[in-house]
């Protein structure tokens, strides 16, 4: 329908012959069809929204997020707060469970996936065959089936006994789940971590120095070793000396009171200025990319659209901050203050214990039956099923990503490395892996996203992640629309975070091109 020639070409054509009627003008048709499309979509959404409003009024269901502050009549299976006061608190506990599951899952799935992926390329026949069977079995069975199968298998294991195995005191497996040693943040952790950060800063400086020396003289100077040495030395000293840093809390207290002194209008102005600055920056960069030695290139209507879109985005942000949700700025102030007060609390006040605490799992007998005590890290049945299900399934996909990445490095690279006389380990470390990593990273990020989203299958076996808690909440309050919106925002935020992190590394790893 719409011809996609630029406005400039159309104009020059127009000078040749008679101008076409306005409804045949490419630019007019292009924009008219888009506006009509937009209006149709908006009309459809408006129609659905009005229907929803009618239906909700008919059923006497009020909309709004007030239910987040009201009491929830049921307990959660596990999490930071198993007996939450309000629905909002319950959803928050569910989100924390999801995030924990995702982070721990990503860590283990990466390790396992890399091992299996490298194993598939092994020259050892039995290793490569076992890895292939692992991958081909796990990735062709739906994750939900696997999770339920693991759940059922755990349920059929023997009950907890006082001499539980397989390795008593270290690893307990029973129909209640799995119990393993727990390593947690100790009393003086935050004071100690300041030592470590200082050590890292100093170590980085030392590493740079060694690298420069290596570049200048060609001597082997082991820069990473010096970095690790400095950090370890600081950590060792800090392990005993950390109570000396109790005064750091006062700094954070000062920041907290500084934030508290801000008034909402100031925050609104700051956010607005930031939005404007971001838009201006974007437009300047855009124009700079269109600048040639001969001057600014002709901007077609699409370019103008982008510029207007950036400006409109800034205006929307400002309108939202000032008119749409004025409470946002006081919320920002309050949570900023709370954050720094919480951090300040972690210092001083007789925090002299060791920074990191470790406990071994134990078994206690309170009633008739023995059960896992609170010392160890207890993966209850449902958690263990989701965790191992998600980890094994994602590991199979990560293994394929890793294998593909390594195979994607041209053979000439390893041949060249051999010709230079590099040892096999040096070749892998310096030549193959850096190039493979560049190929692996984007699909790896995708797998991390999938893992995070797949934790939502916990709903099938009743582990209290954000989706399962949300279901409990809407079953009790009837606020389905609101709960689904919270789910979507939460998962979008997770996806965005992972994309930003992966993209950060992606940009760092990119080949520098001229």
């Amino acid at each position, binding site marked *: 329908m719409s011809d996609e020639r630029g406005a400039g070409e159309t104009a020059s054509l127009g000078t040749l012959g008679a101008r076409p009627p306005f409804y045949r003008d490419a630019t007019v048709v292009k924009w008219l069809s888009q506006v009509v499309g937009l209006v149709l979509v908006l009309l459809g959404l408006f129609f659905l929204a009005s229907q929803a409003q009618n239906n909700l009024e008919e059923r006497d269901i009020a909309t709004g997020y007030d239910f987040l502050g009201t009491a929830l009549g049921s307990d959660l299976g596990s999490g930071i707060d198993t007996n939450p006061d309000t629905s909002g608190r319950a959803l928050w506990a569910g989100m924390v469970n999801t995030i924990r599951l995702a982070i721990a899952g990503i860590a283990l799935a990466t390790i396992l996936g890399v091992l299996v992926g490298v194993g598939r390329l092994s020259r050892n026949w039995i290793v490569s065959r076992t890895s292939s069977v692992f991958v081909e079995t796990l990735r062709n069975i739906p994750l939900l089936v696997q999770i339920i199968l693991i759940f059922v298998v755990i349920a059929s294991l023997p009950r907890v006994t006082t001499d539980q195995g397989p390795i008593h005191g270290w690893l307990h497996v029973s129909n209640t789940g799995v119990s393993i040693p727990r390593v947690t943040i100790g009393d003086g952790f935050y004071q100690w971590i300041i030592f470590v950060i200082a050590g890292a800063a100093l170590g980085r400086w030392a590493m740079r120095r060694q690298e420069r020396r290596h570049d200048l003289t060609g001597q082997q100077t082991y820069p990473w070793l010096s970095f690790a040495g400095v950090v370890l030395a600081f950590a060792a000293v800090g392990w005993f000396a950390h109570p000396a840093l109790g005064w750091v809390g006062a700094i954070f207290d000062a920041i907290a009171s500084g934030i508290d002194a801000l008034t909402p209008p100031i925050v609104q102005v700051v956010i607005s200025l930031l939005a404007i600055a971001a838009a201006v920056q974007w437009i300047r960069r855009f124009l700079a990319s269109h600048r040639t030695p001969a001057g600014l290139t002709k901007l077609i209507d699409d370019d103008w659209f982008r510029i207007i879109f950036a400006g409109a985005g800034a205006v929307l942000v400002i309108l939202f901050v000032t008119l749409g949700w004025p409470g946002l700025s006081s919320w920002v102030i309050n949570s900023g203050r709370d954050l720094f007060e919480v951090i300040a609390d972690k210092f001083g006040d007789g925090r002299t214990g060791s920074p990191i605490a470790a406990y071994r799992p134990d078994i206690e007998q309170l009633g008739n039956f023995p059960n896992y005590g609170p010392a160890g890290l207890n993966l209850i049945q449902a958690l263990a099923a989701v965790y191992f299900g998600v980890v094994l399934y994602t590991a199979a996909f990560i293994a394929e990503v890793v294998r593909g990445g390594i195979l994607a490095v041209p053979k000439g690279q390893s041949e060249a490395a051999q010709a230079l006389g590099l040892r096999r380990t040096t070749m892998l470390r310096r030549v193959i892996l850096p190039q493979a990593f560049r190929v692996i990273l984007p699909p790896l990020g995708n797998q991390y996203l999938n893992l995070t*989203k797949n934790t939502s299958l916990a709903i099938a076996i009743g582990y209290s992640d954000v989706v399962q808690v949300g279901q409990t909440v809407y079953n009790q309050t009837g606020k389905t629309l609101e709960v689904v919106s919270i789910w979507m925002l939460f998962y979008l935020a997770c996806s965005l975070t992972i994309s930003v992190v992966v993209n950060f590394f992606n940009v760092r790893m990119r080949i520098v091109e001229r």
Partner: protein
Amino acid sequence: MNQGDALPTLADKPVIERVATRPVEETYRSPAEWVRKNLFPSPFNSFLTVAFGLFVLLTVRGLLNFVFSEERGWDAVRTNLRLIFTHAYPEEQYVRVWVCVGVMVALAGLSLGLFAARGDGVPLRKISNALVAAAVAVAVGVVLREPSVLIGADGEVVRTDDAVVRQSFADAMSDRWGWWLTAAVLAVIALGLRRVPALGDGSLRTIQAFNLAAIALALPVLSAWIYPWGHYAFAEGEFIAEPGRTVAISTKLPWTVMWVLAVASLLVGRWVRSRIGEQSLSRLRIAVNLVWLAVPFVLYWVVLRDPDLDWARITQVDVPLALAFGVAGGIVLWWLTSDGIGELGRIAALALLGLAAFNWLAAFMGWYPMLQKVRISFLLLAVVALLAHNFSGETQKRRRLLAAWLAIMAVFHYFATIMNTPSTVETPTEALIGGFAVTLVVAVFTLMLSFPLGVLLALARTSRLPIFRVMATSYIEVVRGVPLITILIFFVVILPLFLPANMEISLFASATLGYTLFSAAYLAENVRGGLQSIRRGQYEASDAVGLSTSLRTTFVILPQALRASIPPLVGQVIATFKETSLLAIIGVFDILRMANSVIPAQTQFLGIKREGLLFVSLVYWVFAYTLSKWSQRLERRLGVGER
């Protein structure tokens, strides 16, 4: 050798190609050498070999012990096979299910005969090796499995203080003579295959892949005549297992018919292919593809549902309506494609679009009543009218457009009538089918509906129309950022809130809608990958020959882009197939729910879950693995990325 003799003549060409594509025979290595090179090349590798070998042996032993344990309730699976595959579809109407399977099997055989090239065949040596490996695996498995438990006179397992009593090792080995015999038979067949003489060109040393598949499929069919698979009945609202009758009674004949049908249709396909010319062959192939598109709808709505047609209404309303639209629309289209209509044609088409849109607006506002299919017919007419200017000019082109329009109307009105007619098949549950059938139906409908949507989204995302691009991008990114289960819950729980008060939507429909919209976003990303692989020159060349945007997209860009995105699209098919297991969470009686909730609730099989779940895993695995292997072959054959 004389240089001149080695030069290939034109007639030799196929032979030469065949020789060139055949893999080079590996140089023979003695088993000891193979073991040293592949298992113990270095101390570290020897350690790995031992560690992994132990791990594999223990895993296989555990699996065998579980599967063949006397305490396993495999009866729960084999008695409920029909439940697992079709849920509660009534037994007296079951022939309808067999008709569906038969149509699919016959079409698949026909397509294979028409499309697939004869390969080089599988060397008998390879089959012989596989059989030897199978024989060794059976023998190792027999030794690995722990001795059976003793069964007392009362039929219960003999126990002494919490532990079961097992046979002695020697007894166990001699009791498993059937398995030893199996291994021996396999080994004998394998050795016999090696003795087959090489005739002339060596034609007997290979076997055609189709023949091999036919033999392989014949074995399970044969097993139905020999082995007693289970059976269940539905009485007074409960499923009753009938261990005496087996499902083989009712399935061995149908499965035999299916096997014969598959082989016969394959042969027919080949015969037809060898008889007709190139042009009619390609026409036939297009026809078969179109039949594939229509078959899922016909099978589900016509064969399985058996609609209770109201002939009075059909003759008085439906047929006249379809005829009226066909004739009136045909006249409009004929006029729109006539010579010299120019601008007027476009304005008329736009006016038609406006009329179609107005009908919907009027429906929302409640201004005047109108049958839904009339509104849709108007919309279809408007869309075809907008494309009509591409067909103006020659009489033949105009006739084709007219024929296409009549076909569209016939198909659309036929399905609209069928879908609006209530079913006569009475099932004890709300849904028509369940079990694996519902998994397949949802997967197929999702793919068929999400494909056009996904292509449209991909085109919008890569187009130069900024507002459409922003809308498509935000839709795709939002859908890809949230888990499927939240979208399914949205459609199942919240969708009824958004519908007009008098409108209802079934669980099946809302779930399929959710899957479709979810899958479309992922499909769009795959197609976008294909679109981005199209070189700029293709666009410039189409502009140079004066194609309009719609012609350029349909005939130049999309064919190449879709071809390039076939491998990821097959991956998406597999993903969608696996995702259908989530139906169990939202309350559809799919195959997973059968194994996880329905069978464990039967009085005979209380709490038996693991066996059913393992069987479900196996079913999913067989389908997904076959598809993924096929897609790998396809990828190699298309040579994507090598061009």
